[in-house]
């Protein structure tokens, strides 16, 4: 089932009664979610990603715009009739019911020709429980489960009625780091096994990047960029997206273009074509630095952190927008933190330049 969002907008009335200013949570969202894909809605808190999810679920009504499931316009359809599965951030498992009763609950609501016999319900319940690997816990109460197990029960409950669309609201935020890694692989596996179009919301870029077929990066209600995770990472549309994706984050510098030369502070980093002379913001991915005695970028090292395979060099540069410049380099290169200076060459595809005012990407060619 593909999902089409057409000019989707959600405005909340202002809390402040005196000013009638509305809060635009989601602004003119257009997107076609392909059938059977896993989509990550990504953005900092308050960016409208959860509101978008709740509009798809029908728990919130859009102010304007339309939502289609396949070819059906579901904009006016109530949540009950949309046939969706929703996993809440805190799972919302019914505390007084056992795991089995929780998973079976949606099945018992089926009416008319969809009505199931007791045996069918039990079978479907066990099937869903097996899928998320909790079939040994069916008689427990939610309070007797760990966070990860509760999470699985919530997914099983959402999947058991075979929804057209599966929605996950911050599914991993209540789990500890190790479980988070494990569970996100689980979500990926379950999604690929069931082939249900899945949308999940997260503020954790790593999480979204690692399991999504596509990610949607949002900021203050406006979609910044949509694409495959690697594409968005390699080719950010603006400074916000570039900063939001990647750990450690991208290094941002004050720079300028003058006579076909890109300067980072005083250092002439590389010759470029197709950009007029102007002051720009320069972003360099941490992995874009290569130690080179004749490299153009001159930094003062502060600290070297050995991370096994790689070495993270923390240094300072006078044009850096952040206190420190962080570069990840191969451990074969030896950097002595006591040195006065370390010089880097920059990989051309790891450097981006942005308009200083609009923060939009400025595309250039390497000479």
């Amino acid at each position, binding site marked *: 089932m593909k999902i089409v969002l057409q000019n989707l907008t959600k405005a909340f009335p202002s809390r402040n009664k005196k000013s009638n200013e509305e809060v635009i949570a989601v602004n003119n969202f257009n997107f076609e979610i392909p059938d059977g894909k896993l989509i990550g809605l990504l953005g900092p808190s308050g960016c409208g990603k959860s509101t978008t999810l709740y509009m798809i679920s029908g728990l919130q009504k859009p102010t304007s715009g339309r939502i289609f499931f396949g070819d059906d316009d579901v904009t006016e359809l109530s949540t009950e009739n949309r046939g969706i599965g929703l996993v809440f951030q*805190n799972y*919302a498992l*019914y505390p*007084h019911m056992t795991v089995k009763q929780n998973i079976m609950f949606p099945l018992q*609501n089926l009416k008319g020709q969809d009505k199931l016999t007791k045996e069918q319900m039990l079978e479907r319940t066990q099937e869903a429980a097996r899928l998320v690997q909790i079939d040994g816990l069916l008689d427990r109460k939610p309070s007797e489960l760990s966070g990860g197990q509760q999470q699985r029960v919530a997914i099983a*409950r959402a999947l058991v009625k075979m929804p057209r669309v599966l929605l996950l609201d911050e599914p991993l935020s209540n789990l500890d780091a190790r479980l988070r890694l494990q569970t996100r692989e689980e979500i990926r596996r379950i999604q690929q096994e069931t082939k249900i179009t899945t949308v999940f919301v997260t503020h954790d870029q790593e999480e979204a990047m690692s399991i999504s077929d596509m990610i949607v990066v949002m900021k203050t209600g406006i979609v910044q960029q949509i694409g495959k995770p690697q594409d968005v990472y390699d080719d950010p549309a603006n400074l916000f997206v570039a900063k939001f994706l990647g750990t450690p984050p991208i290094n941002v510098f004050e720079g300028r273009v003058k006579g076909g030369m890109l300067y980072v502070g005083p250092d002439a980093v590389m010759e470029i074509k197709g950009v007029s002379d102007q002051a720009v913001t320069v972003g360099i991915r941490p992995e874009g630095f290569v130690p080179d005695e004749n490299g153009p970028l001159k930094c003062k090292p502060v600290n070297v952190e050995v991370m096994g395979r790689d070495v993270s060099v923390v240094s300072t540069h006078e044009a850096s927008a952040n206190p420190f410049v962080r570069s990840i380099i191969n451990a074969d290169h030896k950097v002595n933190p006591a040195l006065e200076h370390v010089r880097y060459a920059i990989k051309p595809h790891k450097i981006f330049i942005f308009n200083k005012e609009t923060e939009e990407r400025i595309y250039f060619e390497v000479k």
Partner: protein
Amino acid sequence: MVESKQQWKAWLYLAPAIVLLLIFTVWPIINTVRMALLENYSGLKAAGGATFNFGIGNFEKVINYRRFVQCMKNTVLLCVFTVPISTLLALLIAVALHSIKPLQKALQTIFFLPYVTNSIAIGMVFAAMFNIVGSFFGTENELIVTAGIINNVIEFFGGTHVNWINYGSSYAANMFVMIVYIVWNALPFKILILLGGLTSINKQYYEAAKVDSTPRSRVLWRITVPLLSPMLAYVVITGFIGGFKEYTSIVGIFGERMGPASDSGRMNTMVGFIYDSLSNNNQGRASAAALILFGIILVVTLINLQVSKKRVHY
């Protein structure tokens, strides 16, 4: 823990409360037991220097009183009917109140008004509503006109008036009026408690139910009631305790006669029996009845707690 050197300070601060409790709660309880166990104890005679033998004669007498058995029957019947009815109604009203947005505050206030109204005054209004005008004393010209809004309504719809509470009324009619009155009177407190419980239930359970297209009745019985069960248990237990102590509502409707004019004392309750015994200067009998009432409430509450252990989800 308070250090032992500081403990006398703690006791000092507690002293006013402890002294008052000892005088007005603990001593009366001990005294009740003492009076109940002294044969035919009477405060007046004791003041006159009479002595009483130790024994359980008071209990025997109380249990053998036909009036006491009637009082017990009334009390139990009232409890058995009013507690479930009022709890169920309060639940439905609380859920309805919780789900509406406009006028919610105003309606909450209206539903809470009976709680702050004097129950004798409410009783008099109810008595007027269920009244029939005619003769109260069974003379020849009785029941010429019917007044009382309930009978007016019945007659408006073509029914015949019912003698609810007046001379010659039936026990069932009396009981019906009492149940209506007590249920109405008990609602506000229960609604308040249940409404408080409802607001503390996480809304996501309802959203989850909505996503799973759960019918409303199923949401009520499978989600709201179990999640509200601690409050429901509290409301039922206090309801039974209150029910067994029922007295003022009877006075409100029937006056101190505790029954229709044709049969005084017919609607009397256990607390009413205790008051009567006290006013007859029969403190021994009153104390014995009070202890029996205490025993009954204790047993019922223990049963309630036992049941709620299985049914209540905390």
